[in-house]
Every structure is written in structure tokens, then in C-alpha cells.
């Protein structure tokens, strides 16, 4: 018999007119409440159709329909109902929506009802009513805290193979659909004088006070309805009801342009220097977001001052079987009745240790709900009208398999009484919501009069706390604290705010007598309902010396559930304090950390998903390359043409080989814009570059380019490039694509911090110029057709390593550099980027008669390996100039970054790695980058490792695969045959050690 049916039965027998007209099929719907307009909404839970009203949460709607069973617990799979009416809910977790929008572990208490809402229970099989895993409950005695640390150890192999798979399958709560989330998320940034966190009486009063003073105010609340507890209580403010006062306040705030009211917005964390993270749920209360609109927004709020007015959270009392569906917090029961016009059942009992619990009884009675008893742990409990009071009594047990049926009460007299009730409203007092005050490691302080922790002095900078969050529980105190807090915060900013006459409001003390758990009974009394942590577990932790609160938490998992212990931690440490014979403050609390409530991956990622994960940088010839059908590759954030397939080419190697051969035989063109370009000017530019580069630059003539190697201060080579001198006081430096930003940063460091009075100015021009390499025997002939005739680029007038400013295509300003990465007669020509597209077309057109080809990064790589030029794979951050065979370049005659430490013995060993080339002995064997080098014979091991291959490629010129890499004493081992081993892929080949300059070792071509 399902829970709903059981209730239906109970209602039928109680149908005595106490139910309201609006109730319809909603057996537990009452009259009144704040259900706006009463617009009916349809929804399903586990496939069953229900009706609720606009303004409902999933939890209130389910209760209204007589559904108390909403979930199963984590470990014992105990039947569970809703415990709370807010974001602290540990039990009523559901899978909301389906497909890519399926959302595990959504708290029914904060899920706003919308028409068509689809929810399913989780962590149960085959059904919520009949859960196979509930078998665990039978063995609970074996499954105590930390039992798994003591067993499952034999045989060792069984852990991964047997025990763990079972545990993993059983563990976890909700499930994901594995489909991509179809919704968009935004990020945004807000600034304010005062951020008010929480829109209850405290927060609203603070916002009104600050807003009236003209300050920039943001007030945020996680609820979709402002007002906090005012919506859950019956008492009024001034001569208005609480709700009416809230509406009035909200209207006034809305009328102020300097105030931003943000409902459905949770402040998730307090970060350094007044920065707060906030998540606004923009579309979670509708079936799906509007096209283009976000589901949620992550706001980063920069506040000058912040006031925490987050209210308080009620705490339960632990007693045997206190976890049955129907056992709820008293304040939650009251909230459901007063705000949502819902009672969890037609018969309710109350169990409390403070006066606040009595309000629940009074409000329910006023709404015609039968209150079967008020059980108060205090002998001197206040009188109750309309219900039986048991003073000095305790609830010692409950019954009801899938829902509470009655509670057993131990009376002051010592006798027991079974009290029938479908719901038990429990109040153990209230805990101020201090969480955000602890995000910067502040520790709360204990306040005896309310038996709770309150924020201490060590708050985050510029944060204040007011109202219930500060332990001031009465409405009057809250209004006062909100107003005064706002005035104080603003006065620190030099903004004068005034406190207008505060309205009259209830000012009742809470009168709580601490009572944490009922000692009677051999069964289990739950503290952490989601993680199934009971009083017994705490006792066991104490017995086994897990006594520090952190050990207690980690050993028992107390407070580690999705609610982070909002309703459970306090009880746990109170009991630990008692067992350890300490005061609660001595035991202390665990650390509250962000986020306040769980935050989706989606909103934290914002728009940075899929192709937009990071920006894309396109080269000037991108559009043209696309037209050519180029294959593109990611190089950092750049997209570069990798090769240009031609009709009939079925394998990328065919395209790359063609590009290489045609370049070496005639001419090829490559977009090299991505190389970093830094413009260096000033009287001391040359001297500055002398410091930056390992080799000398001071004497580089104007009109010349020089290759340069840059070291880190530790003597490791980290970048190379060229510097072209356009004038005595003007250089243009190129960097590798990967290090453009780093080199620019390091140069700025040297300029500002090391040599602050050198006359040097730096600026990046990487993007300003479209630069193309034109390489091959016909490069000059091609360029002569493009470069304006007044510029003589003959070998004599414009020799190797020359540079100059010229014009092309009839007057377009350009820069020409005669440098070569390919080893061919080659130039790099640069035009303003906007002309890059036209330039590549012009170059290709001019090259037609030579059969000019465009080549991509693959061919570029092949040609540089054929020339033995170091690139990223060789400049891997662990190689020195010595390793690269450029030791001689490091000038000993001058100071430069890195030269001193490059002389350390460990970097100058006689068996140091040296960059050399490798040719396969059997020409058919592929040389592979990442293979390790071993001597021709002997064992293959780490101990005998001789080095590794850094880069490899098929050389169409040599007709075989070749590689370059680092070999111990490599420079003195030319001609030696060694092994390149790749056990990772089960390969081993013989290679001959050769010069890394495979093609044109003498470098005649580039000078021709």
C-alpha cells in the first residue's frame, strides 16, 4: 500500500470539513498561505501525476498530496521524507528533469514547482516503496562507522575485483544522463557599496536603510520569495502581516534605482577583499530557458561592505527512529502551514526543548490541524491551548514503516504513552547561519543563552552580521540590527544613513534549554540523516579515539553529505563534548568552506564550453586557407594550416611530402604570423638585447638580422628567434609562437626591475603584421614580382640575414627579412595584417609560374628537422645551450640572463646530452619521437639509457624517416649505430648517429 494511499485513507476518515475548498485532491492542503493566485500546476513524481499551485516547492506540493516518502538514505536505504523547508534539506533529494537536463540530488524543498515538472526518486531499486538495498538496514549493526577500514583486505586482489565494485554501485545518490547539458550559463560582475546577504526582516530593513541613504545596494536571497521567516510565521510587523510588510518593503526597494534586488540568488562564498560569489537561478523555475537565455548566472560581486543576514537553521533532537517520513523540524512544519497552506499530515505532534516549538502547535491548531500532543523536554514548559502538553517528557521511539504512525513518549512520571501522529514537529533550538563568516577561516564563538555558535570577531574583512545570523532571534531585534548595521557599514564609507522609526514587532525570547539527544533506547538515533550517522557512531568514534571534531567527521562522515551538516553537525559535537567531558566550545567546530550550497559545473564554466572553451586566434591567411581546403591544427590558441590536401591525395603524408619537395625544388609559402614579434626601441636597445640573449647583439649592423638564444636565469635555454635591426635604436625581435607572451613578460621584468634606467621601450606587434615565409630556390624570383621595383633584393643588395622596410604591390608598406627556417633560399615578408589575405593571394598568383605551393605546419616541421633546428620539443625546459650544441654561443665576455648559472658542474658534465641526428639503419624503419636511446648491445633499462629522440619525421628528400634528439656525448658519436627503443609500443630499431643537419649541412642554399 503506497504512502499516498495510506494518507488518502486517513483523510477520508477525517473529512469533517476541516479541509478547504481549494484542496481538491490535495489531501493535506489547508486554507490561506501565500500560494499566489492559486494557479494550478501539473507535475509528476516517480511517474505518478500530481497537482500543485504556483508558489509551491516540489516538497510542499508532494506534502499537499499526502506524499511523505520522498527518498532513501545513503547507507541503510531507510525510507525518508522531507525534514526541512529550505536549502539545508538532507533527505528529500530527487532527480529533477530528464535527458541532458537531468539533475541529480535536487532538494525538493528548493525546487520551485512549474507546470510539467518531472521528478524521480533516487538511490533506490526497484522502487522507492520497495528498495532492495534496504537489506542494509538489517545489517546495520555490522555497517557501523568505519567498519570498512577493518575488513575487505583479503585477498588483496578482491578489493578492486569484488568488494569495491559492489560498494561503488551501491554508493552515490542521484545519477547523470551522460548527455551534454543543453543549457547556457552566464557569468557577470557587479559592484556595490553594501551587499546584503539574505532578505528576511534583517536584510530588508538593512537594504531599506541603505537604499534610502542613496548607497549602491545589492540584496540577495536564495529563496524566490523575499521575507525569510516572515513568510513562515503568523505574527505581523506594525499593523501589517509579515507578508504584507515584505511586499511593501519590496515595492519601495524596487522604486530605488540604486538598489538591486536579487531573489533566487545564493551567495556561495566570501572571498578575499570583499568579493562574493553568487549564483542566480534564472530559469530553474521554468520548463526550459528561453532561447539564448541562461539557466543560471555566476555573479562576482565586488562589495565595499557586506552584511550577512542569512538567518538561522533549526536543529533536530536525536531519538530512536527519529528519521521516519513525517518526522520534521518544527519550524519547517510551521512554514509549510503558514506559507504553503500545507500540513504534512492531519495529525501532528510537537517535540521541543524551547518556546519556538510551541508556535508550531499554535499555528497548526489555528489552521484546524489536530495536534495530538506537545512534548516538551522542560519540566517548566509553557501552557498550550488546544493540545495535550507533556512537560519534562521525551520521545523515545517511533513507528511506521514508510511513514510515521505514532511516537512513543516517556512521560515525566516515567510511564510511556504512544501518541498517534502522521507528523512529528521537532525543535532543538536554532543555529545562526554563520557559514560565510567562516569562509576566511574565522571561528564562531559559543553563546550560552541561545545554546548556539555565533560569529566571533574574526569576520572576513568589511563583513558585518546581523539578526538571527548573529543570534538575535526576535523580529524586533532583527529589524533593529538590520537598520543599525546598515548605518554603521555606510558610515565607514562616509555615507550618512538614518534609522527611520522601526515598526513594532514580536520580541519574544527563545527560551531554550539545551537537549541534544534522548539517551533511552537501544536502537539508532540519527544525527546525519543523509549519511546515516547515528549517536552510536559518535560513541564508537570516541571509543576508538577519533575525538577531534575533524576526526569525528572524517571517521563517521558526519556532516559530509550534500547538506554539509547544516542540521547534524551541532548534535554530533555536542555529544562528543559530553563523552569527552568537555564544554562544546572546547570541542570546537569543523571548518565551513565554500560553497554555501552546492553549485553546478555549468554555471562555474559559464560560456567557456565546447568550442568556446578558449578564444581562437586565426592567421591572416585563414580565410584563404579555408578556401584551399586546408586541414587546421591547434597551436596554442592559434589555428594554423597543417597541410593543404590536393585532389587525389588520400593520405596526409602525400600532401606533406609534396609540399616539402616542391618547396625545396622550387618555392613554397607559409603563414608564419604566429611567431611573436616584439618591437624594441631606445638608446639602450642594443645593450638591452645583449642582456636578454645569450649571444652578443651590441654590434649587429643596421639592416641585419641575427639568430638569438634566450636562457632562463638558471642557464636553461627557453626560447630562440631572431632580432632584426632597423635602426641604431630600433630592433624587431621574434619569439617562438609558444613563448611570445613569456618572452615579452620577461623583457618587461628586465626593463622595469633589473635595468630600470635603460632607455628601452617595448611593445608587441605580433598581430599587426601578416608575415609569410617564401622559401625555395625560386623564392627571390617570386618576390621580385611582388616587391616594388625600386627595391633591389638581389643577393648582393639584400644578402642572407638582411632586413629592410620596403613596399609591395605598388606601394603597400612591408618588411622583408632574409632568414630561413627551411634551409632554403628564403625570405619572410610582412605586410599590415589587413592586407595579409590579399598578400597570400598575390604571392600564390606570382608563384604560379614556379609551381609555388602553400605549406603548413607539418611540412614546416619536416624541413626544420631536416635542418636540425631546435624547436619546442628540443627547448623542453631542461636543455641548456650546451645540450643544444650552442654552448659556444653563450658569451663569457658579457653579462646576460643565465650565463653565470649555466656554468654549474651538473650542467657541464663530460657525458652531457648533445643534440644530434638519427637515421634508421634499415631505411624502412620509422624513427619515433619519444623513443629512448640504448647502446648497440647490452641490456635495455633506465640505467643504460643514453638519451631520447625529441622530433622525428619522414624526410621525402632523404627518402627515409629521420629524427633528432639528445644523446650522451652525442657530438662525439657520429657514425655509431645504436638502438632507439620504444617498449611502450613494442618497437626497437637500429639508428645511426649523424649530424642533425641532414640537408645542405654547409648551408649553401640559403646563401645562394
Amino acid at each position, binding site marked *: 500500500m503506497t504512502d499516498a494511499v495510506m494518507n488518502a485513507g486517513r483523510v477520508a476518515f477525517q473529512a469533517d470539513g476541516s479541509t478547504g475548498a481549494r484542496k481538491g485532491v490535495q489531501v493535506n492542503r489547508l486554507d490561506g498561505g501565500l500560494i499566489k493566485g492559486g494557479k494550478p500546476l501539473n507535475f509528476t513524481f516517480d511517474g505518478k501525476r500530481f497537482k500543485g499551485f504556483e508558489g509551491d516547492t516540489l516538497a510542499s506540493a508532494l506534502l499537499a498530496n499526502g506524499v511523505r516518502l520522498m527518498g532513501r538514505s545513503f547507507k541503510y536505504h531507510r525510507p525518508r521524507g522531507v525534514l526541512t523547508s529550505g536549502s539545508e534539506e538532507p533527505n528529500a533529494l530527487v532527480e529533477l528533469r530528464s535527458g541532458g537536463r537531468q539533475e541529480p540530488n535536487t532538494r525538493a524543498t528548493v525546487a520551485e514547482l512549474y507546470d510539467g515538472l518531472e521528478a524521480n526518486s533516487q538511490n533506490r531499486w526497484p522502487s522507492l516503496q520497495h528498495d532492495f538495498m534496504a537489506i542494509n538496514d538489517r545489517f546495520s549493526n555490522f555497517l557501523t562507522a568505519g567498519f570498512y577500514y577493518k575488513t575487505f583486505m583479503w585477498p588483496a586482489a578482491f578489493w578492486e575485483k569484488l568488494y569495491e565494485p559492489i560498494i561503488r554501485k551501491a554508493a552515490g545518490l542521484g545519477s547523470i544522463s551522460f548527455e551534454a547539458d543543453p543549457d547556457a550559463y552566464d557569468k557577470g560582475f557587479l559592484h556595490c557599496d553594501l551587499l546584503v546577504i539574505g532578505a528576511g526582516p534583517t536584510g530588508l530593513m538593512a537594504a531599506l536603510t541603505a537604499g534610502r541613504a542613496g548607497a549602491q545596494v545589492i540584496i540577495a536571497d536564495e529563496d524566490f520569495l523575499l521575507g525569510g521567516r516572515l513568510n513562515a510565521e503568523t505574527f505581523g510587523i506594525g499593523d501589517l502581516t509579515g507578508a504584507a510588510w515584505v511586499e511593501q518593503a519590496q515595492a519601495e526597494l524596487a522604486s530605488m534605482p540604486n538598489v538591486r534586488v536579487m531573489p533566487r540568488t545564493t551567495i556561495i562564498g566570501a572571498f*578575499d*577583499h570583499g568579493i562574493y560569489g553568487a549564483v542566480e537561478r534564472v530559469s530553474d523555475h521554468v520548463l526550459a530557458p528561453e532561447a539564448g537565455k541562461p539557466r543560471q548566472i555566476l555573479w562576482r560581486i565586488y562589495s565595499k561592505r557586506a552584511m550577512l543576514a542569512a538567518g538561522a537553521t533549526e536543529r533536530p533532537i536525536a531519538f530512536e527512529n527519529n528519521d521516519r517520513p513525517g518526522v520534521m523540524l518544527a519550524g519547517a512544519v510551521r512554514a509549510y502551514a503558514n506559507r504553503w497552506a500545507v500540513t504534512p499530515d492531519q495529525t501532528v505532534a510537537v517535540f521541543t526543548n524551547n518556546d519556538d516549538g510551541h508556535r508550531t502547535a499554535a499555528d497548526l491548531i489555528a489552521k484546524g490541524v489536530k495536534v495530538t500532543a506537545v512534548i516538551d523536554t522542560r519540566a517548566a514548559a509553557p501552557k498550550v491551548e488546544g493540545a495535550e502538553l507533556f512537560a519534562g517528557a521525551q520521545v523515545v521511539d517511533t513507528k511506521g514503516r514508510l511513514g510515521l504512525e505514532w511516537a512513543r513518549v516517556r512521560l515525566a512520571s516515567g510511564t510511556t504513552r504512544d501518541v498517534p501522529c502522521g507528523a512529528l514537529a521537532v525543535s532543538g533550538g536554532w543555529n545562526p547561519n554563520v557559514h560565510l563568516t567562516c569562509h576566511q577561516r574565522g571561528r564562531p564563538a559559543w553563546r550560552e543563552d541561545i545554546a548556539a555558535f555565533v560569529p566571533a570577531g574574526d569576520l572576513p574583512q568589511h563583513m558585518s552580521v546581523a539578526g538571527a545570523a548573529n543570534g538575535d532571534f526576535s523580529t524586533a531585534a532583527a529589524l533593529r540590527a538590520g537598520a543599525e548595521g546598515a548605518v554603521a557599514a555606510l558610515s565607514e564609507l562616509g555615507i550618512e544613513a538614518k534609522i527611520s522609526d522601526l515598526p513594532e514587532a514580536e520580541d519574544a525570547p527563545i527560551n531554550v534549554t539545551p537537549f541534544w539527544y534522548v539517551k533511552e533506547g537501544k536502537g539508532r538515533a540519527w544525527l546525519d540523516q543523509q549519511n546515516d550517522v547515528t549517536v552510536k557512531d559518535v560513541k564508537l568514534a570516541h571509543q576508538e579515539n577519533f575525538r577531534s571534531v575533524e576526526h569525528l567527521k572524517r571517521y563517521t562522515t558526519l556532516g559530509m553529505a550534500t547538506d554539509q551538516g547544516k542540521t547534524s553537525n551541532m548534535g554530533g559535537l555536542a555529544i562528543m563534548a559530553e563523552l569527552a567531558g568537555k564544554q562544546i566550545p572546547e570541542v570546537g567546530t569543523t571548518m565551513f568552506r565554500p560553497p554555501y550550497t552546492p553549485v553546478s559545473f555549468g554555471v562555474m564554466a559559464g560560456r567557456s564550453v565546447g568550442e568556446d572553451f578558449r578564444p581562437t586566434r586565426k592567421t591572416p591567411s585563414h580565410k584563404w586557407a579555408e578556401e584551399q581546403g586546408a586541414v587546421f591544427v591547434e597551436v596554442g590558441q592559434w589555428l594554423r594550416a597543417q597541410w593543404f590536401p590536393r585532389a587525389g591525395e588520400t593520405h596526409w603524408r602525400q600532401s606533406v611530402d609534396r609540399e616539402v619537395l616542391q618547396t625545396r625544388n622550387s618555392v613554397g609559402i607559409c603563414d608564419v604570423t604566429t611567431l611573436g614579434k616584439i618591437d624594441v626601441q631606445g638608446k639602450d636597445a642594443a645593450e638591452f638585447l645583449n642582456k636578454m640573449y645569450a649571444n652578443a647583439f651590441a654590434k649587429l649592423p643596421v639592416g641585419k638580422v641575427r639568430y638569438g638564444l634566450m636562457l632562463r636565469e638558471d642557464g636553461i635555454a627557453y626560447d630562440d628567434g631572431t632580432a632584426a635591426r632597423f635602426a641604431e635604436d630600433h630592433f624587431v625581435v621574434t619569439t617562438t609562437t609558444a613563448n611570445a607572451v613569456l618572452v615579452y613578460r620577461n623583457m618587461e*621584468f628586465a626593463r622595469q*626591475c*633589473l635595468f630600470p634606467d635603460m632607455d628601452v621601450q617595448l611593445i608587441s606587434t605580433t598581430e599587426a603584421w601578416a608575415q609569410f615565409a617564401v622559401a625555395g630556390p625560386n623564392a627571390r624570383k617570386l618576390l621580385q614580382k611582388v616587391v616594388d621595383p625600386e627595391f633591389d633584393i638581389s643577393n648582393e643588395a639584400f644578402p642572407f640575414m638582411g632586413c629592410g622596410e620596403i613596399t609591395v604591390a605598388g606601394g603597400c608598406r612591408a618588411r622583408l627579412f632574409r632568414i630561413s627556417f627551411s634551409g632554403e633560399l628564403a625570405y619572410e615578408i610582412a605586410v599590415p595584417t589587413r592586407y595579409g589575405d590579399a598578400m597570400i593571394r598575390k604571392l600564390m598568383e606570382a608563384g604560379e609560374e614556379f609551381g609555388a605551393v602553400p605549406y603548413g605546419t607539418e611540412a614546416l616541421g619536416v624541413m626544420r628537422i631536416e635542418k636540425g633546428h631546435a624547436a619546442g620539443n628540443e627547448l623542453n625546459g631542461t636543455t641548456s645551450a650546451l645540450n643544444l650544441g650552442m654552448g659556444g654561443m653563450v658569451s663569457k665576455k658579457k653579462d646576460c640572463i643565465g650565463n653565470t*648559472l649555466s656554468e654549474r658542474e651538473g650542467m657541464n658534465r663530460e657525458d652531457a646530452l648533445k643534440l644530434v641526428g638519427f637515421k634508421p639503419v634499415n631505411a624502412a624503419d620509422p624513427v619515433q619521437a619519444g623513443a629512448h636511446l640504448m647502446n648497440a648491445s647490452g641490456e635495455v633499462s633506465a640505467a643504460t639509457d643514453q638519451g631520447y629522440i625529441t622530433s622525428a619525421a619522414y624526410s621525402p628528400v632523404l627518402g627515409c624517416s629521420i629524427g633528432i634528439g639528445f644523446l650522451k656525448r652525442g657530438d662525439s658519436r657520429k657514425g655509431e649505430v645504436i638502438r632507439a627503443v620504444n617498449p611502450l609500443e613494442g618497437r626497437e630499431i637500429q639508428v645511426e648517429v649523424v649530424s642533425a643537419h641532414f640537408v645542405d649541412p654547409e648551408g649553401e642554399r640559403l646563401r645562394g
Partner: protein
Amino acid sequence: MIINHPILGPRDFQEFTYLGDASLIDRPDWQADNAADQFHDYLYLRDNPAGEHRELWFHEQGDRSWLVVTRNTVTHEILNVELARDVARARGRSK
């Protein structure tokens, strides 16, 4: 964190790139007899206090100023911000 830039006022630390101990300004003389030891200490032995720390930040997504920020590494409170160039000059790095 918010870094109070001497020229631009409060800026989000996200705009900055962190380097570390401000003593990296004090690059030793390459011609000193014990230059190797001095460079070793300069590069590898950094201040790492739990408390006030003078450190280099680069406003890379901003005006490209290098700053010397005095920050408490326990509380993250920032006590002082200077232009690194001024600090370097004050420490005698002018030619």
C-alpha cells in the same frame, strides 16, 4: 583579491601574473668572485614567510607595470603596493 595599483587604483588580482619574492630585483653582479653562490641564493633561496611578504606582481592584463606588493600570506591582507621600477631604483639598480 584586490590589488590597489599605485596608478590605477583597485584592480582584481586576476589581471596580474605572480612572480614571487621581491628580492628577485636584487640580481647579483656577474663579475663578483662568488658570483655563482650569489646567483644560487638569488634564484633558489626565496623568502617564504607566514606573514608579511614583499612580492612581485605583473599587471599583464592591465598597464604592464611590475609591482612590489606587500601582502600577508596568512590573511591575504595587502599592506602596501609600489611600482617595482621605483623600488629597483631605490635599491640602486640605476646605471
